């Protein structure tokens, strides 16, 4: 059932751009006043930029406050080329968009280095510099006096009048929405959301977070560039005051008001904030106050925007209806899950194991993961403090259990192995290769994957989408394919989706696979996180408390799955507090206490070790 995303789902995903296209046609047919059409066209060019800002802000969590500068750059480059050098509009617009993209790319390099907080303010600074930059090129741009644009655009032989320009801008907006739709629905869009919520989770899947970020900036600047090029055609005049801070606020407020996580939200926001004050009610002189008030209220009252608030009401209604109907079923399901003796629900892990092994065909499973002489200092505290000869080795085909009370350094050890927190002293090797100082994504690529103590799954994304994204990633398809959603992308995604559906089914997630992650129980979230760690071609898997929050039945299935995969050659390092389960599946055990390696050996050795009992029973009781 999970694989059946019927044609309706595909059509539904087009409904936003389709409605906007209809609205533009309708306005074009009904409105004939020149000034209204001009304002409409300006609003549309802002909406194109806002759509890009929405992608950066809502999907990827990047505070691209400087986007108006890119918009202005493209507008000026286009206008200067057409007016002063008599280029054709299309060519000039192309160069303008490239210029905006180049600046966006430069900004992404800055963003990679400095914190989001600084970057937001740097962006604001950049926008305030637009008049200075325009003045710098006074000869070409006319400086603060402005630049008169003589260009009129020739569209297949006819000169475009205000209505033609309106349709042209509208077509650009619809195109922009379609491109962003493609990205939002693609695995790249899912990775952007993962990056927004946790860079660590993204790099654990072998993705280089910087590549995703650069993609976000490039896309967002291309849209700012297209919007700016359209803008340059309108009004016949360019002046730095057209790009004042007010318009940054307009873009930003539009995205927040319309809903930053939605596709058409930013467009709706621009319509409300730009058109309504100018055409419907006259608030001349108050517009700054209105924008400011709206930004404030939007952030405080509707963190997700109008569309989100609307959907919130809708999902509340469906929940109430479902509660009326499904309360009893739910109770029964809950009881069954809590009952340790209910054996009938136990799903054999065979199918899941088969899927996981197929994915790893031809992979070298024989690499050992080893950490030795590990020391990690945080400020003045030694979180890990191994003796020089001490080491923990995760042997191929074995399940290695890591025990220790809270604060004994288990997660620090895992973080050091994955590259999140490189050791101050000591060495981590995978199959003999020194990876102590490598980045998380590069370590992941060597065949290491991990699950997290607190799974970080984007709220609005479904487990199916997450699994599909994880599986398509291995195909290393260029981002351009996702942008165009071309046949290659379709093929790759269909295959991955079928594969993801088989995995979800085999893991007993078929019921929730198409629900947003925010609706999952903590146990289901954890299963999804573990599945994501497994659904990559990795030979070594680190699991941080994989059984926490699981029912008895789910624990049994998890244990059986781990054992079967280990028997097939995978190696596991498991941190777990459920000793009964952990001791059953473990081949080797290491015990940490206060950062030291207390002992290691077989489960029997460790159980009989006096020191271990004291440490663990003190803390596990």
């Amino acid at each position, binding site marked *: 059932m999970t694989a059946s995303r019927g044609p309706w789902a595909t059509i539904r995903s087009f409904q936003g751009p389709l409605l906007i296209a209809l609205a533009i046609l309708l306005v074009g047919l009904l409105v004939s006043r020149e000034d209204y059409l001009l304002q409409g066209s300006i609003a549309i060019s802002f909406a194109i930029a806002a759509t890009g800002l929405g992608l950066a802000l809502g999907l990827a969590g990047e*505070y691209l406050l400087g986007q108006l500068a890119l918009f202005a750059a493209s507008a000026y480059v286009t206008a200067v080329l057409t007016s002063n050098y008599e280029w054709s509009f299309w060519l000039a617009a192309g160069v303008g968009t490239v210029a905006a993209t180049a600046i966006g790319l430069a900004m992404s390099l*800055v963003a990679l*280095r*400095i*914190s*989001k*907080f*600084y970057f*937001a*303010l*740097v962006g*604001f*600074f*950049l926008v*305030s*510099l637009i008049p*200075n*930059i325009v*003045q*710098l090129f006074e000869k070409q741009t006319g400086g603060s006096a402005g630049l008169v644009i003589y260009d009129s655009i020739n569209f297949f032989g006819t000169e475009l009048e205000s209505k033609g320009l309106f349709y042209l801008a509208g077509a650009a907006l619809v195109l922009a929405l379609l491109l962003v739709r493609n990205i939002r629905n693609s695995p790249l869009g899912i990775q952007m959301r993962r990056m927004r919520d946790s860079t*660590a989770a993204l790099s654990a899947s072998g993705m280089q977070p910087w590549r995703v970020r650069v993609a976000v900036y490039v896309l967002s600047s291309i849209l700012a560039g297209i919007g700016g090029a359209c803008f340059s055609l309108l009004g016949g005049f360019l002046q730095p005051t057209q790009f004042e*801070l*007010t318009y940054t*606020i307009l873009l*930003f*407020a539009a995205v*927040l008001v319309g809903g930053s996580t939605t596709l058409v939200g930013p467009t709706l926001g621009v319509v409300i904030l730009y058109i309504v004050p100018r055409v419907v009610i006259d608030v001349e*002189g*108050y*517009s*700054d*106050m*209105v*924008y*400011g*008030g*709206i*930004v*404030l*209220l*939007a*952030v*405080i009252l509707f*963190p997700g925007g109008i569309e989100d608030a609307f959907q919130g009401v809708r999902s509340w209604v469906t929940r109430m209806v479902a509660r009326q109907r499904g309360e009893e079923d739910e109770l029964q399901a809950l009881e069954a899950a809590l009952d340790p003796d209910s054996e009938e629900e136990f799903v054999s892990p065979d199918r899941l194991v088969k899927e996981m092994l197929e994915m790893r065909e031809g992979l070298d499973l024989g690499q050992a993961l080893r950490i030795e002489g590990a020391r990690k200092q*945080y*400020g003045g505290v030694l979180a890990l403090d191994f003796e020089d000869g001490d080491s923990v080795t995760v042997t191929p085909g074995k399940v290695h259990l890591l025990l220790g009370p809270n604060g004994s350094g288990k997660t620090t050890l895992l*973080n050091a192995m994955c590259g*999140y*927190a490189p050791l101050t002293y000591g060495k981590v090797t995978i199959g003999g290769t020194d990876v102590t100082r490598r980045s998380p994504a590069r370590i992941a690529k060597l065949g290491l994957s991990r699950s997290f103590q607190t799974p970080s799954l984007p709220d609005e994304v479904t487990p199916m989408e997450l699994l599909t994204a994880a599986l398509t990633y291995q195909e290393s398809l260029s981002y351009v394919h996702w942008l165009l959603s071309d046949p290659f992308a379709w093929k790759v995604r269909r295959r991955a989706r079928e594969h993801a559906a088989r995995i979800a089914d085999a893991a007993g997630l078929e019921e929730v696979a198409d629900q947003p992650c925010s609706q999952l129980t903590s146990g289901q979230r954890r299963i999804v996180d573990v599945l994501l760690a497994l659904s990559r071609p990795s030979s070594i898997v680190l699991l941080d408390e994989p059984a926490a929050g699981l029912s008895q039945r789910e624990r049994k299935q998890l244990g059986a799955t781990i054992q079967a995969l280990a028997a097939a050659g995978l190696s596991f390092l498991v941190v777990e507090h459920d000793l009964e389960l952990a001791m059953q599946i473990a081949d080797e055990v290491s015990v940490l206490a206060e950062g030291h390696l207390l002992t290691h050996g077989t489960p029997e050795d460790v159980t009989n070790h006096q020191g271990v009992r004291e440490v663990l029973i003190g803390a596990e009781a």
Partner: protein
Amino acid sequence: MNQFLTAIVTGIGVGSVYALVAVGYAFIYRTTASFNFAQGQLLAFGSLFAYTLYMAVGLPVVLALIISVVIVGALGALVERVAIWPLARRGEDTLTWLISTLGIAILFAGAAQRIWGSRPLAVDNYIGPKVMHFGSVNIATPYVVTFVVVIAVAIAIEVFQRYTLWGRAMRAVGDNRSAVELAGINVLVLGIGAFVVGGALAGLAGFVLAPVTYAKADAGFGFVILSFAAVSIGGFSSHWGALIGGWLIGLVQSLSGTYISLNSQELVVFGMLILILMIRPQGLLTQRAGREV
């Protein structure tokens, strides 16, 4: 030579204004880990109240100063209540605070324009001659006053944070919020307190400066951005860093204005800011914090 000296003295004078606003930023940041975008607008209010109380109503300068600073400090508290507290209560991250204070800043700017209009309003000099002479170098008196005030303020903050319970709590709350809460200190009050002090400092800067800059409803954003550059260079958590950052920005601005062109001032500051942030993302004067995963 004379040109160079004038540029240096003007740079330090103008830089003292950025420093005063930046010290307010650092003070707020230290306690609440947030950046109050409305700070520049509060400075503008300081100037506008100087105009209304000192020029229009004709109060004595000291009284006008005290009333202005108190009102602007109260506006700082309003910012905290309206734009920070509802979000902090929900546990939203500090980046959203940036946006909500931006919203209230625009709202304030719009309101100020309604009340005072958008034309610059002249304010007479409060004390001494309009311009002071140091050898052959001339500088407007309010800059000299600001220079003295900002040093006094930095010392006062140092003493406050070192030797008083509230000051120590304000410093500690930035490092470990729950520990301070457990010590029985009301953290919410500390947050408001920080915004009041930060607002009062901005009001003070605006008041002192009014004779040179005139009172303008929309003067805020320029100061926000340059003072932000000052704190970023100096590091957000140190008022001494903010002070030095402010002077540095003032000097760079003034020197590039003298030797390159007036138009290049902000561009050079921007370039310097990017360069410094790329080399030391945490600011010049702060220690690198532990890495967070």
